[in-house]
């Protein structure tokens, strides 16, 4: 095995590029990667064409780190292509894992999104009514651009995923961990989440946890928080308890509540549902009106519950 260099592809679907940055954030480790592996596809850093990939034998690639969600036909096409060419398909980062921030678009229909982006956007030139078309005839012939799907999918919705590396973006240490595991052949059983904890962020969170009773919810900027005490107990909607740890408690350590990017814990099917269940359970009132009043302090419930995972939720999208 040692003679043959590892064949690696990195690809981004509907993504912000943060995951790729996270790979680069491994700093000099990337050189070790380069030494140990051939990076066969990495659109952000390496020139490469789809034809090259198509030309590969099936399973020629050892591993593909696929970040980003599946938003359009190109994403799906490439995902399927890479799946065919790879021995191991890794959903890399929250977008691939659960849909991520792009997944929030699942609250809206394709038409609403198009309308918002191309017709009804304050940054557009007045009067412009141009909408992207999948096929456009021009001087060069017929141009084809990918079809914009009705909703966002997780990578797992379109192809079989072998491993998942959660995080928005994954912590550089996870990137190291997963690549090391591939190189050393110490991968866990298929289907596992790699590089993250089996417990919630709270487990790693150093803040002091006591009685959980909340009589009012606050946005982080609304109060001066106690840096020692559990944010939720202070009324700040922290998703740490419903979120897999592995991030190093970066947000709470920065006095910001956890937003849940690492996704639900292994035994939890729907992160958002659990989030509202847990958070509302600790509302300190038995009076229906007061309960309503307290819970009114929770803004944008969909956004809070599924900031990183609407396509991964049970219902996946709004109707």
């Amino acid at each position: 095995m040692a003679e043959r260099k590892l064949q690696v592809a990195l690809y981004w679907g509907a993504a912000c590029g943060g995951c790729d940055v996270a790979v680069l954030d491994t700093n000099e480790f990337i050189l070790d990667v380069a030494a140990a592996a051939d990076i066969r596809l990495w659109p952000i850093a390496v020139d490469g064409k789809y034809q090259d990939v198509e030309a590969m034998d099936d399973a020629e690639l050892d591993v593909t780190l696929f970040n980003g969600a599946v938003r359009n036909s190109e994403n799906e096409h490439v995902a399927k292509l890479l799946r065919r060419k790879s021995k191991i398909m890794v959903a890399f980062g929250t977008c691939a894992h659960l849909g991520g921030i792009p997944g929030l678009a699942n609250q809206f229909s394709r038409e609403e999104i198009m309308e918002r982006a191309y017709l009804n956007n304050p940054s557009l030139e007045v009067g412009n009514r141009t909408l992207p078309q999948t096929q456009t005839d021009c001087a060069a012939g017929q141009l084809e651009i990918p079809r914009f799907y009705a909703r966002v999918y997780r990578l797992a919705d379109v192809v079989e995923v072998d491993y998942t590396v959660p995080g928005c973006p994954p912590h550089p240490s996870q990137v190291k961990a997963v690549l090391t595991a591939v190189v050393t052949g110490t991968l866990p059983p298929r289907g596992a989440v790699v590089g993250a904890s089996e417990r919630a962020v709270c487990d790693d969170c150093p803040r002091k946890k006591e009685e959980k009773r909340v009589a009012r919810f606050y946005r982080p900027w609304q109060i001066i928080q106690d840096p020692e005490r559990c944010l939720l107990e202070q009324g700040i909607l922290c998703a740490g308890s419903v979120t897999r740890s592995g991030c190093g408690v970066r947000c709470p350590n920065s006095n910001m509540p956890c937003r849940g990017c690492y996704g639900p814990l292994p035994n939890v099917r729907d992160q958002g549902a659990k989030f509202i269940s847990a958070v509302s359970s600790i509302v300190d009132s038995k009076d229906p009106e007061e309960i309503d009043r307290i819970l009114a302090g929770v803004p944008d419930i969909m956004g809070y519950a599924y900031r990183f995972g609407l396509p991964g939720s049970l219902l996946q999208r709004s109707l």
Partner: protein
Amino acid sequence: MEERRIGVYVCNCGTNIAKMVDCEAVAREAEQLPGVVAARSYKYMCSNPGQEMIQQDIRDLKLDRVVVAACSPRMHELTFRGALQGAGLNPYFLEMANIREQCSWVHEDARAATSKAAALTRAAVKRVVFHEPLEKRYVDMCPATLVIGGGVAGITAALELAGADQPVYLVEREDHLGGNVARVDLTAPYLDSARDILAERIARVRENSNIRVLLESEVQQVTGFVGNFTATIRTGRDGEVATTEARIGSVIVCTGYQPFDAARVQSYGYGWFPNVVTSFDFERMLRSGRIVTDKGAPPRYVAIVHCIGSRSQEFHPYCSRVCCMTALKYAHEAKSALPEAYVYDLYIDMHAFGKGCEDFYRRSAEIKTIFLMYRKGSAPEIRQAGPKYDCEMLIRVNDQLSGEEVDIPADLVVLMVGMESREDAGKVARMVNISQDKDGWFIESHPKLDPVATTTDGVFIAGACQAPKDITDSVAQARAAAARILGKIARGRIEVDAVFAEVDEERCSGCRMCNELCPYVAIEYDETKKRSHVISALCKACGTCVASCPSGAIKARHFTDQQIFAQIEGVL
């Protein structure tokens, strides 16, 4: 997952189910489900042959899971669990589909009912796949009992337990024992002295070293679980307050009733007319030997009005059960103390149902009590009599027996106030975790076959706190409660249900979300391990913590997410 071998049994319940549900079709449909190796329908699944059929199949077909589609699991789940156990299968490998109470009995469209029954059965099959073997556990039974309320029921229960040499804490709020019976002079229908009855029992209570009587005391808190409760009892009034911590195994709630407030019924003018009194006011008069009007003269006309606050749309719909006989007792007593007086008795239906009661009713008539029957809902009206009458008041009543509206003279009107649940019954209910019905009475575990137990293990109810009751019925109930407790004491240990919640410490992140949610304080947080865990004996398996655990680290045994998901899939 290994392949399951599931048996499905569809009960016809005579025609109870079969009339509306095509049981055979339900069985045939179930047969198609994965894992199902046998599906049968039978006339009475709960009968001995029915149970034996299941047991036979378990042995012959090596079943490892059983689904019974029959009546409500509240009815026969235990029966069938017993059957499984009898065949050597873990009793929790059973799931029931309720196709009678919630299907055949409530639907009129046989096709829809059958398809619903099939869905419910399918859900049960899907669920049972995930059932886990559970074992019952045993905990110690503390022989001491806490009796809350020192009325006749409480005293009886205490004496019964103490008579078997078991320690009892008898807690009474007042400074004396006896409760409402202590306010009564004689008892119906044999006109025995209530005072004598109590004197004897109280003397026995005092002489019994097993009974610790705590007067002027209130139970503040009851924690723990069956066999192992701890009660905090606060004794004394404002000044000197002592607190007793008692370790007890059972609780009998005998908090009794409170009389209905007669002033709430406008037409009787209680509180307005000085000579309109309640039954308890009248008892006081009888006990003092001074039955007089506000003018100090013995009344010439005594009127007794039944059903004050009872059997009414406006106040309490129920019958208070004892007032009729008490009213007849008053008729006797009034005739005895005031031989010249005329006694009227205004009733709706005469509830003289107990032993000796009909005879007492007859004798009340023989001593010339004049009975008038008024209609439920049209209460008699009382007004001041003018100077031309030789009486204080006139009662206008539409007598149902003659069809005439008559005025009857009255110098003294006795209102038979009904019983209502005590104002603070809710507090007691919450303290010992029992429920109240719409009228505030404590709810028994089963109205027919378990009239003294409650849905909370180790907590019993006796006497008029469960529903209006006379002395003899209260006494019987108090003893019945004592029987339950003695039975447990005799066995020395108690079975604790195998169904409870448990924390998977491998998954618990110590977020402490659940800690405050548990009403039984069954969840303990380990500061050193930074993990929570459930004290299973305290757990009542409600599942609150399970639903809220953000990590999914708490499992409700027998109600796991997986099982319920499967069930959801099944019903749809």
